[in-house]
């Protein structure tokens, strides 16, 4: 196990795009947290809704839903960082060499799983640190929101798993990234609307990327509703998200097992 983790880290740390994408994620998230903290504070201070006045003393508390939700927008950047490496390894045939050198296909897949775990932990810690730094949260407050924090990890794990799954099926980097984006922003919504309009099947919310992106409720209710309502943020379909993660890894296992390296 330790051997695989060390090996994965050795490969990742030497891959420049991995660092570039991760830096991109940190920059995007930092800007969002920094700007978001100020914007929301501003709107809340401007708000005439009486319920919000009581919150101005503790603005950070209202920022949780915003950051938890919006950090998901940048998680695909993390997915791209490992998708690129995964595809490149196949193109170069180094995966074949790793198998020849003595890795089993299961160990290769386990390595990918560690990549996803590593990035999930990275995304989670980055979010926690940035919110603490820019929004002035303290740790005890933070862990009151353990359910949402678990949701962040689950969502990130899901997006990364989906990315790796696509990278396994599509042999070119550009193609895989295009399919990833197209699936998330075009195929799923259009298919959902199509099924809804034509067959009255309201299934869009059960599609994988919809499940991951809406796992943490949107904070759209933040303004103009009661404080209690604004502070409520639930997880939608966490079980289904976990099931999708299992399906992706199961699919990757079957594909790897049945195909030549």
């Amino acid at each position, binding site marked *: 196990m330790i*051997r695989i983790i*060390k*090996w994965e880290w*050795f*490969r990742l740390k*030497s*891959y*420049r795009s991995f660092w570039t994408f991760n830096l991109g994620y940190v920059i995007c998230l930092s800007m969002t947290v920094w700007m978001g903290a100020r914007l929301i504070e501003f709107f809340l201070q401007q708000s005439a809704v009486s319920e919000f006045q009581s919150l101005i003393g503790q603005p950070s508390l209202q920022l949780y839903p915003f950051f938890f939700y919006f950090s998901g927008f940048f998680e695909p950047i993390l997915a791209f960082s490992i998708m690129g490496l995964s595809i490149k390894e196949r193109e*170069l*045939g*180094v995966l*074949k*060499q*790793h*198998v*020849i*050198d*003595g*890795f*089993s296909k299961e*160990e290769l897949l386990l390595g990918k799983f560690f990549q996803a775990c590593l990035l999930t932990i990275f995304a989670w810690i980055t979010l926690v640190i940035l919110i603490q730094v820019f929004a002035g949260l303290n740790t005890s407050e933070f862990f009151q929101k353990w359910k949402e924090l678990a949701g962040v990890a689950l969502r990130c794990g899901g997006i990364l798993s989906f990315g790796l799954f696509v990278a396994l099926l599509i042999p070119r980097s550009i193609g895989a990234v295009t399919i990833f984006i197209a699936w998330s922003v075009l195929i799923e919504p259009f298919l959902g609307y199509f099924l809804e309009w034509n067959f009255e099947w309201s299934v869009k919310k059960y599609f994988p990327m919809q499940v991951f992106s809406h796992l943490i409720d949107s904070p759209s209710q933040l303004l103009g509703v009661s404080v209690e309502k604004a502070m409520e943020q639930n997880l939608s379909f966490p079980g289904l998200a976990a099931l999708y993660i299992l399906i992706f890894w199961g699919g990757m296992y079957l594909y790897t097992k*049945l*195909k*030549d*390296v």
Partner: protein
Amino acid sequence: MNEIIFSAQNLTKKYGALAAVSDLSFDLLKGQVLGILGPNGSGKTTTLGMMLGVVRPTKGDLQWSLGESSASRSRRHIGALLEKPRFYPWMNAEESLKLTAMIRGVHRSEIAQALEMVGLWDRRKDLFKNYSLGMKQRLGLASAILGDPDVLVLDEPTNGIDAAGIADVRHLIIEQRKRGKTILLASHILDEVEKVCSHVLVLKQGTLLQQGSIEEVLKGQTWYELKARDEERLFEVLSQFPRHEKIEKKDSYLQFFVSKDVRGEDINQYCYDRGILLSEIKLCRRSLEEHFIEVLKK
């Protein structure tokens, strides 16, 4: 010496309707240097791929007996270079071998030794992408010999290497053979195979045409070329030689095929006793290349 370390039974690989390898069965013995011969598309690389776990056989069984519980663990005792060297272009030679060492569980101190053996120690910090074809091939060989594996599987190891390099590679393989390593060598340079291999296996369109030791394969492939002033008389005398198999005329020589135990001096003495003075007598042996071409034509 007769311990079987790899066994393949009815190995078959099909890509759709095309059979890359059909019902191939063979054993690899400990200490054997087995050359796999065959024209392009004969199934050499597919066979090696199946042996190394990167190609799934459609049918058949294969088994490594290297004292390990699983195929992947067995592969850690095998150093292999399949088709071409495969490394990350953004890593240097040392880093590339570190990755291999991690997988095989080999101590990093052995990396220096492997790089020195292939003559890449001075270029160890250069990126793989900046290497020439020959240097890449050398790095592939360094990766194969890293950790002193029990078995070496080399697919066209001299690809892209210059003449001096080819001699180095041959020397390296012979050194490994002397140390009792088991080697599987696929190459289209038959001279190379003949020089280093003890056994050969000939494939054509995925089927096994011939296998055995080089001596067995080339058995009956030696003959004498004789020349005398009176060629007709020589022919007549040789036709009466007790252990002769065949006489053929070629240019100004007679090609005289005899049983294996007949020596040149016996023939010379036989002719002399019958009043013929040989002006030339030469032992000829068919090269593996000539034999191979003939086998493929059949």
